[in-house]
């Protein structure tokens, strides 16, 4: 990707909400959440996690933008977009683990359920921005990932 800071943030918020939202809606019923979790509780939990990925991700985008300045090409290779799943996932998991995400009780999300949820959302988002997105908006790739 060839993002600008503004484009990064817009792409993060809008596309993660849409693509991440669709994936979350599909996979939530099959996640291995603790027995007795109602469907509405499950959806509330997974959508709060998605919101946390978006909000915390805005901070990450500033860090990525800063790191990108050391690259001569001022680009963000496809691999970077993939591998940042690890650092972002770990931070969200830690926030969950310590009960720091509002609306989700400490220990309410088993690690397995979180990993499945997070990885599937991330890969869907990553595949989308590296391909089909270019068909949905022909200007997006030439304007640093900006949508508005």
């Amino acid at each position: 990707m060839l993002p600008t800071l503004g484009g990064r943030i817009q792409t993060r918020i809008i596309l993660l909400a849409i693509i991440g939202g669709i994936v979350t809606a599909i996979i939530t019923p099959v996640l291995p959440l603790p027995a007795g979790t109602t469907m509405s509780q499950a959806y509330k939990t997974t959508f709060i996690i998605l919101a946390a990925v978006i909000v915390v991700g805005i901070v990450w985008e500033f860090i990525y933008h800063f790191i990108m300045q050391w690259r001569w090409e001022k680009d963000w290779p496809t691999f970077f977009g993939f591998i940042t799943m690890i650092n972002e996932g770990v931070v969200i998991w830690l926030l969950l683990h310590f009960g720091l995400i509002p609306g989700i009780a400490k220990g309410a999300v088993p690690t397995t359920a979180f990993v499945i949820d997070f990885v599937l959302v991330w890969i869907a988002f990553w595949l989308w921005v590296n391909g089909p997105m270019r068909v949905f908006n022909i200007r997006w790739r030439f304007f640093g990932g900006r949508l508005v």
Partner: protein
Amino acid sequence: MSESPTELGSMDPSIPATIIRERPAVAPAPAEGGAPPGSGDLTDELLTSDQWTDAMLQAAGIPVADVPLVSIGGGIGSFVTVDYLRIAGTPTSKIAVLSNLDFPWQTYEYLTRVSQIPRPERIRSDSASRPDNIWGFPSYAVTEAFQEGKWGELWHVFAEPMWADFYTPKAGRVFAGLERESKRIGWDQMLVKGQVRMVRKRQGGGYFVILTPKAGQTPTKRVAYRAEYVHLAVGYPGLRYLKELQDFRTENKDYYHVVSAYEEHEHIYEAARTKPITVMLRGGGIVASRVLQRLMDDREKHHLQTQIVHVFRTFIDADHSPNEQNLRAWNKRKGANGFAYQGFNYPKSVWGGQLKSEMRKLEGQDRATRYKEMGGTNTPWRRSWQAQMNQGRRDGWYQIMQGTVDEMMIDGDGKIVSVVKSKSQPGPVAIAADYIIDCTGLEADIAEHRVLKDLLDHSGVGRNPTGRLDVERTFELRGTASGPGVIYASGATTLGGYFPGVDTFLGLQVAAQEIADDLARRRFCKKIGTFRSISQWMKWARNKQP
């Protein structure tokens, strides 16, 4: 040759920001005598007038055809723009492409072939830079993976540029894609063969484009196209040789031993197969790398004794900040053994990211300076080339040196001796070679192109800070509006504008998108929004007409 500045930053500082006016105070006398009225050729009145009336053409006897948009050039620049416009809903009847080319990739294929990229070899272009697909989806790498079962290409684009060289498509795949897309959009229905002579403003709005069809094909020598919009994509204005090489060629009438890499020069590779020869290369860009690769490949394949001497005017031996005194961490390009290394001909983000956004805001000298800071000749760092060059340096058959050449002569053995002045040597060094290949790829001034010269003289267009045609962010030629009419330009002639990567596949698409959007604002075509984009992509995928 024009004395106008062609180098960055060489303009007179007293001249306002982005424009170097080439236009003389009074209209210049015609270089050629006008034809008599009624002859179907250009009269004195037409040659000297900046603006033409319908009556003037009638008096000259030149037939006029009405087409709302004319694209001049007919190469890949025209193709990409017309492709966009067709996808934006423009019928073929509203577009004429005036060109002396039979098909859009004709010149490109010739230049890549002679500069050692035949169809099976890979060009220097990104996976998603597809001139046959405005979306760049699916990318070349994905298509190659699925069509040829080369799943490794997916790893290639996943790991590039850290653990794999940048993926680049094979020339043959690019040409095949262009052929398919040109049939799909009805290219041949829009193509009119001939040589464009000039574009002049029309009184009352729009333009006249004068075309000289092949002799005998039309009753008159010239025909005129009356168009509201003109798109100019004439490519590189011409090739320039290193001065000392040109002088040598002219003085000795030797166009055989001293050649440009952009000329047919297969005889050199053939000679290398018959006897041990020494070849001198000049230049440090992609073409030098390609020619070097060919020499090294042949050496290996046929067990040859070819010696290669590579002379760089600017010798890069380490990481560097182009045109800056000190190395800056934020602006550091890799370099070694003479070459500056970069994946593509500009830092990647000029085609959509940070640098594109930054350049779009810069004017005049600031823009010229920024161009310098990211410029300079460069070539990609490819694993296979590195291995070959390392071997050559180790074994002594590949020598590199910094230097410039003032003097060239023929010695007693019939070899060409270049007297090289090098910063690393106290005195000049004489180097004898059997052949010299100029890989510098210097470009001629835009005024050497007849149509561009005419525009500079008559249309009101100026030059940008790098001496090329001055375009707006929409790629409209600044100062050339004629009533509601607009002239747009894309490609190499617009280098130095608000967008740097103009003479590349993706750059032509960036320009085409700006032009199509501007024409949509002027209600010439439809804007490509999400729904049109998706439905048109489906048509592309099924190979249906737009």
